[in-house]
């Protein structure tokens, strides 16, 4: 899923400093699962904005709404009635896809992102999320014992670790495992070094990644 975290309160407060009426919109997709922008987080942010405005003696109405997803036009359409209530701004609590969809559909609205979108990853445990995919557009994790050196190596190295690998950790931080250490260890433990690990990876074609510019998928069988 997409992992995101809420922007610092100070920044969000700045967004609404000169506003009288705002709408905070959550998303029931990835950001609900990573506890960044679901119904509960919308409630907390809305409450904090109201309290803060009260503290500063500012008039501020904060309404709350959560959409099924903000990355699908059919759900964005649900906001038609609410947008008609003349909000000074909409604060989207989805990943950065959401505020773009909302501002495209409602061009007259001022839309702010309330989250910083970080990466594609998963939960190591409740409250801890880690990056697992970089969306390179050409998945090759089967060559690496099911682990991705593109996303999990600081240099995205395809053919073994660099000199910065020491005691199983990466030189950038002791908190970051050297993925090549994990890959090599697993390959040796499972006895697959000779069979699955032998081929040297050819130069990776990055044109399917961001190097090819913004990407789009068209499924002719689904398009009306």
């Amino acid at each position: 899923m997409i992992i995101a975290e809420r922007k610092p309160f100070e920044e969000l407060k700045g967004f609404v400093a000169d506003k009288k009426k705002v709408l905070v919109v959550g998303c029931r997709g990835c950001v609900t699962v990573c506890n960044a922008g679901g119904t509960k987080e919308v409630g907390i942010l809305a409450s904090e904005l109201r309290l803060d405005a009260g503290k500063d003696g500012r008039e501020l109405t904060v309404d709350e709404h959560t959409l099924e997803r903000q990355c699908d036009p059919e759900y964005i359409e649900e906001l038609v009635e609410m947008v008609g209530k003349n909000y000074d701004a909409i604060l989207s609590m989805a990943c950065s896809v959401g505020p773009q969809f909302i501002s495209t559909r409602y061009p007259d609205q001022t839309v702010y992102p309330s989250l910083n979108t970080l990466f594609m990853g998963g939960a190591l445990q409740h409250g801890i999320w880690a990056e697992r995919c970089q969306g390179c557009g050409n998945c090759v994790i089967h060559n690496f014992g099911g682990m991705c050196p593109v996303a999990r190596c600081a240099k995205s190295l395809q053919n073994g670790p660099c000199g910065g690998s020491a005691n199983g950790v990466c030189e950038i931080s002791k908190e970051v495992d050297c993925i090549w250490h994990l890959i090599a260890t697993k390959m040796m433990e499972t006895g697959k070094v000779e069979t699955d690990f032998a081929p040297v990876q050819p130069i990776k074609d990055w044109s399917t990644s961001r190097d090819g510019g913004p990407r789009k998928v068209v499924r002719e069988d689904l398009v009306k």
Partner: protein
Amino acid sequence: MSDFEPKIIAFCCQYCAYSAADMAGSMRLQYPTNVEIVLIPCTGRFDMLFALKAFEGGADGVYVAGCLEGTCHFLDGNIRAKKRVNYLRNELKNMGVEEERLRMYNLSASQGPRFMEIAYEFTDLIKQLGPSPFKKKDAA
């Protein structure tokens, strides 16, 4: 502001603080009427929105009272609550409000006198801090 009587909301776990409040009552112990108790089945049920809504509703201070650490009826509800309280205390600080307006206390069901002490201690603290800045606009 010496005549300031704060409004305090106490979220009390039914297995400890709420029972301790009962015991305080049975023992005829007096505690400040500023404290309004809200029963929760375990402090693990404490939601950050509970405290935020209490502040929105005009509370000057909020505290969460759970079991002594290691004695939670549901193993770690009080530890989870402590983390939420700490998170929200940090949020209060970011909003420029005294984090002391939100606290976590731990006590057992047999500590009726301690319940009374906590009620006095927190009420005195909030009296010193003054009315909640969140409602200053209304007071003006």
